[in-house]
């Protein structure tokens, strides 16, 4: 075997045609890479749609796209970003590649099912996109598909929600696969308390995927049934109740927020100890808080519905319960900070992204309490405050978690190192850009600018323009980061097994790992953040 072939690891061609090797692969690492590329492609599309929205809002009134196009663009931006990019981002891409490696396993529990999930993901994404170009035109309902509008609009909602249904199925099967993998395929000695926090986060996430996603599936089936057969399940004239749609939708979609954020928290929990050379502070409380978030997340969905006409008792109960979720989230933040305290910190790009995560997530999390408290929510409900809040949490949180994960595991995936200085610069530009983009939205919301509006009053112009400038800075940061990664994938300096001197199992393998993962089944004798036995000679 030549040196080149050894270095290519699982990426090396296996002698069959490219299509057969990649499209029909059951190797968890290849499937993870496929997800990663697809997610990146869809992310780029979503980013351009977002830029388009910001550009249109630069001046009041029509700049260059019409109202109907604007409605379609924000709906599509939401659907792509939520269902196709953010929900599968970390679990399906990095979970697939690294969960079995961190467990010391040969593959996930059901490799063929894993391949099937990926196909479903592609078919679902394609179906959602097809809704743009077929039927009565692109859906204009917003990503929440609220009835009664979604039941009566002439745009192509049925096809879009069918895409969401298929994507949900894919997400369920990935979750199922991960649960069984973690239960059944841990290497000898890898007890539950020696599991990485990333694996724990994926475990908690997987349970939400399995138990909450079916509710979304049935909800979108009901929309389709309503549109095609006129069932009237949400029509008050026929004994239905549109508020029940909102209940069903948020029973899934609130826990879905934790599907998005928990894996990112897992990534951050894995990265911080490595770059502080210190065991994680409060391992068990972080595990407990992941499970607590997963559970408590399923109790609070109706805080999205305070002004829907829901009963006052329910408003108070759900408002109170919402505050409970803040507790485990804060526990994690305190644990990360305590881990860094008196650690020997190396400010490498993954840590910079992780710190960006903590800062931006805190900004989003704290404003979440303003929205969770029923009194203040009445004031800012459906304003730009909400838009600012969830973009801080999802882009600043999950997005940064994703970027941290890419920069942490890039050397392992490709066997090459990126330009670290450029990566840090990109991270800083992104942090500045994100604040420029989303902070003005808080102010806009407090002043009463409603979300999803195509036009606005002249007094909001300067804040809208500030936000648009921020979107350009963000775009510059993303472009620099992507350039650096793509360039380094071909030209980066080769690295050894363990450039970051981390202690988890994936770093004991060559970079990139071979197709069969471990030559002999590893036996685990220490915890994931015990750096005392990491050797220095494996480095870059």
């Amino acid at each position, binding site marked *: 075997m030549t040196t080149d072939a050894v270095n290519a690891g699982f990426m090396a061609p296996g002698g069959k045609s490219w299509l057969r090797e990649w499209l029909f692969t059951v190797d968890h690492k290849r499937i993870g890479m496929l997800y990663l590329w697809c997610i990146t492609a869809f992310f780029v599309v979503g980013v351009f749609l977002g830029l388009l929205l910001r550009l249109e809002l630069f001046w009041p009134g029509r700049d260059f796209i019409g109202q109907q196009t604007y409605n379609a663009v924000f709906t599509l931006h939401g659907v792509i970003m939520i269902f196709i990019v953010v929900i599968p981002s970390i679990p399906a891409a990095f979970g697939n590649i690294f969960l079995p490696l961190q467990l010391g396993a040969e593959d996930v529990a059901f490799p063929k099912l894993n391949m099937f999930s990926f196909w479903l993901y592609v078919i679902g994404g394609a179906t959602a996109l097809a809704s743009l170009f077929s039927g009565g035109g692109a859906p204009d309902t917003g990503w929440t598909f609220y009835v009664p509008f979604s039941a009566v609009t002439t745009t192509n909602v049925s096809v879009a929600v069918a895409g969401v249904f298929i994507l949900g199925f894919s997400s369920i099967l990935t979750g199922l696969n991960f649960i069984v993998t973690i239960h059944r395929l841990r290497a000898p000695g890898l007890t539950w308390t020696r599991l990485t926090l990333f694996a724990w986060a994926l475990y908690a996430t997987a349970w939400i995927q399995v*138990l909450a996603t079916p*509710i979304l599936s049935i909800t979108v089936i009901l929309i389709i049934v309503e549109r095609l057969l006129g069932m009237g399940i949400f029509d008050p004239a026929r004994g239905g109740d549109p508020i029940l749609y909102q209940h069903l939708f948020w029973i899934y979609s609130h826990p879905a927020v934790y599907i998005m954020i928990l894996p990112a928290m897992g990534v951050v929990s894995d990265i911080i100890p490595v770059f502080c050379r210190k065991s994680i502070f409060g391992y068990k409380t972080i595990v407990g808080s992941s499970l607590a978030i997963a559970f408590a997340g399923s109790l609070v969905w109706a805080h999205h519905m305070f002004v829907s006409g829901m009963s006052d008792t*329910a408003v108070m109960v759900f408002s109170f319960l919402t505050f409970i979720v803040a507790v485990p989230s804060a526990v994690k933040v305190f644990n990360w900070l305590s881990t860094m305290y008196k650690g020997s910190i190396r400010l490498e790009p993954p840590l910079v992204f992780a710190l960006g995560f903590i800062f931006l997530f805190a900004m989003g999390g704290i404003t979440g309490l303003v929205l969770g408290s029923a009194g203040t929510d009445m004031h800012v409900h459906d304003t730009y405050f909400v838009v600012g809040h969830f973009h801080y949490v999802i882009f600043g949180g999950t997005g940064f978690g994703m970027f941290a994960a890419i920069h942490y595991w890039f050397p392992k995936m490709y066997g090459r190192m990126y330009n670290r200085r450029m990566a840090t610069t990109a991270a800083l530009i992104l942090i500045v850009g994100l604040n420029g983009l989303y902070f003005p939205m808080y102010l806009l919301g407090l002043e009463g600018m409603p979300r999803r509006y195509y036009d606005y009053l002249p007094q909001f112009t300067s804040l809208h323009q500030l936000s648009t400038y921020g979107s350009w800075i963000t775009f510059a940061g993303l472009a620099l980061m992507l350039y650096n990664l793509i360039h380094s994938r071909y030209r980066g300096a080769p690295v050894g097994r363990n450039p970051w001197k981390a202690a988890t199992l994936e770093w004991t393998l060559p970079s990139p790992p071979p197709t069969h993962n471990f030559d002999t089944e590893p036996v685990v004798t220490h915890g994931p953040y015990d750096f005392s036995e990491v050797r220095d000679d494996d480095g870059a």
Partner: protein
Amino acid sequence: MNENERTKHHDPGYGLFIAVWAALMALTAVTVEVSTIHLGFLNVVVAMAIASVKASLVVFFFMHLKYENRTLKTMVLVAFVILAIFIGFTFFDTANR
């Protein structure tokens, strides 16, 4: 390892399943009969109670849950608790409107 060896120590046979089936049939008859007596709101409660007894028979015997390990039992419990939460919490709203 052969799947039979793993399960040999608890091997429910034909007889047990037929007995469970007989119980399920009897309970079906009971629930139809009870529904003809007017108990008001209690009718729904009784019907659901009988259905739950039948469901337990199916889950524990037909589906072998009685013979499974504790992990699987816990998982089943979690799934049903979450479903109960979804139904119960929705009532917070609708029952107080």
